[in-house]
């Protein structure tokens, strides 16, 4: 079976350029994770583009016989997985727009609180239930890290240990806590890169063993601005000075059981904390009241 890729992420390109072999670690309906060279490549039939993704045209029936543990050959021209051959030669390279810098304008506190209200409402109808909102680790993180930062104390926000209790917490393939931290760190660092200020660094070795390797990889890449195009659209819309980012928020919030909501919540709360440091008085508290004290 031969198929063609329409897009390949910049990180996937780097990995595949090393002409190596890989091993299948996860197989879902339309996606397959392949471990290679201490990193991962995600084969995705259709779907959003991302830095680690190879987006394949056509249906995903061809991967139905793929099994976890199966070996595959990887090169810049072709991926061979059992009898499936994926031609990469005409695939365009996707690179996240968050790697580029620009002027940042954060939303008003009321706009962010509205976004948080939407997310809270969507938690209520998620099949998995609202795992993250009721997790004490989230309250601790918010109380000890985001609130002090919003109030002008930036000591804890740069300290990786404050993020670790959330890593691996909650259900889902990518645990809810990972998704939330991913949202916080991605937007924080994007704003920091644009303004040439200090970024948050969570060393991979600290995350290792606390969560599934694929989630750790996503977290690590997103902290550096390598995000999928849905996350990219949300962050660009909500830091671009426009007043409309709810469509992007709702699009991301649809992902997984609560994965997209968890990540979006991280983005909203972090932006509220950042906005408060810039004089948007009470922005974070407004969001937290909306989220926890309706």
């Amino acid at each position, binding site marked *: 079976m031969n198929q063609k890729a329409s897009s390949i992420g910049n990180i996937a390109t780097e990995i595949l350029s090393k002409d190596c072999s890989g091993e299948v670690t996860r197989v879902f309906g339309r996606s397959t994770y392949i471990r290679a060279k201490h990193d991962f490549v995600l084969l995705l039939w259709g779907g959003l583009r991302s830095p680690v993704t190879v987006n394949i045209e056509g249906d995903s029936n061809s991967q139905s016989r793929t099994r976890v543990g199966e070996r595959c050959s990887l090169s810049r021209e072709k991926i061979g997985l059992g009898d499936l051959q994926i031609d990469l030669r005409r695939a365009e390279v996707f690179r996240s727009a968050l790697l580029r810098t620009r002027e940042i304008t954060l939303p008003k506190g009321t706009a962010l609180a*509205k976004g948080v209200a939407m997310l809270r409402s969507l938690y209520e109808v*998620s099949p998995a239930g609202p795992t993250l909102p009721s997790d004490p680790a989230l309250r601790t993180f918010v109380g000890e890290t985001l609130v002090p930062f919003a109030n002008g104390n930036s000591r804890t926000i740069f300290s990786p240990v404050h993020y670790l209790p959330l890593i691996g917490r909650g259900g889902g393939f990518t645990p809810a806590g990972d998704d939330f931290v991913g949202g916080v760190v991605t937007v924080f660092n994007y704003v920091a890169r644009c303004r040439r200020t200090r970024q948050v660094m969570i060393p991979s070795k600290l995350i290792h063993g606390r969560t599934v390797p694929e989630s750790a990889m996503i977290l690590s890449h997103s902290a550096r601005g390598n995000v999928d195009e849905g996350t990219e659209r949300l962050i660009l819309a909500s830091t671009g000075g426009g007043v409309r980012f709810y469509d992007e928020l709702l699009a991301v919030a649809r992902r997984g059981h609560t994965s997209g909501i968890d990540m979006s919540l991280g983005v909203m709360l972090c932006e509220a904390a950042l906005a408060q440091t810039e004089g948007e008085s009470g922005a974070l508290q407004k969001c937290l009241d909306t989220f926890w004290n309706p």
Partner: protein
Amino acid sequence: MTVSKGMVEEANQEAVERMMDSEPVWVDLAPASNKMGLRGKTLLHAGPPLSWKYASGPMKGAIIGAAIYEGWAESEKQAVRLAQEGEIKLDCDHHHNAAGPMAGVISPSMPVYELEDRKFANKTYSNMNEGIGKVLRYGAFSKEVLDRLHWMSDIVAPVLQATAKGMIKAGAGLALKPMIAQALTMGDDCHNRYVATTSLFAKQTAPFLVRTGFDPKTLAEVSRFIDGNNFTMLNMGMAAGKAMTLAGHNVKYSTIVTVMSRNGTDAGIWVSSLGNRWFATKAPVPKGLWFPGFTEADANPDLGDSSITETAGFGGFAMAAAPAIVSWVGGSVQGALEVTERMYEITQAQHKHFQIPFLDFRGTPVGIDLRKVLKTGITPMINTGIAHRKAGIGQVGAGTVSFPLQVFKDAFEAYVDKFGV
């Protein structure tokens, strides 16, 4: 104060319980001027608010036809001028507790079915069904179309009105909920397939129809008309759907959708707790099967209030009950089953009264929850007829259409603005 989860859940359950508890009964059939108070050159239409300028071909055709039917104009040209100059006032069916299929045009002298909700005391309305093909609701307005409408008004309506009165007098008013419930177990979806429902209607009304006092020739004509049109009961089914959803409307904090409708240009919804505010966007074009000689290129964007059936928990939501419908709207039996299964993901409850035998008599999905639509990205699936995009031609096919996500986003944002922050 913002709304807590418990408050929303309670409100949604209340809205859906009210929808399911509604008991619409057919009580009358008389001119809209009499029953709905339509006055002057006012025409009601399907879907969200619309002006002549932005009306689609089939909607314009139906407006032209209705203007000639009413005697306001003698020709297409005159009717167009009246509409362009604003002499004909347009308003939504839903603003008058009515629901009309396709263009859904109701004019003052057109007979309308009146349904009374015996539980919640609401009255709802719909016009009479003309059949398929070249008909007013699909934008056709030729002489044969208008002659048929006059014949329906002059001959069919008086007989059916007398039938309804006879049933009421005998204490046996035609109850729509049990009829729909039964028809769903007989292979109808009660939106695009009304074969069983129409048969049940003929069966239940027959003892009263024959005692209306009209001459046998007239009764035979009327019976033939009912028998010859499998969509006879579509309009009354829609009025029943309107009664059910109206019962669930205006429940504070509820995120349940209480109207979904299209006018051939826009598609729009109402949400229970947001009153009669429309959230609308461009109407999609249906996919389906085409009558001989027509293709997708001929299709107008979707129109009609008939998606009130899905809003009330039948129609496309009950496709699993109606495997034969795929020969009319396209797709496969398995696909029809999957549509119903998907709709459970975006609804509040399983219907207490409407059941699907093939799913072990599981209740149909009922009560579209705005939040679930947005969380899943699954949008309501509608069974629909397809009109030609040009005025005057009529129906060119039947199919399915997915309601646009944007209206749910807009409504959700308005909901959060009202209650959430």
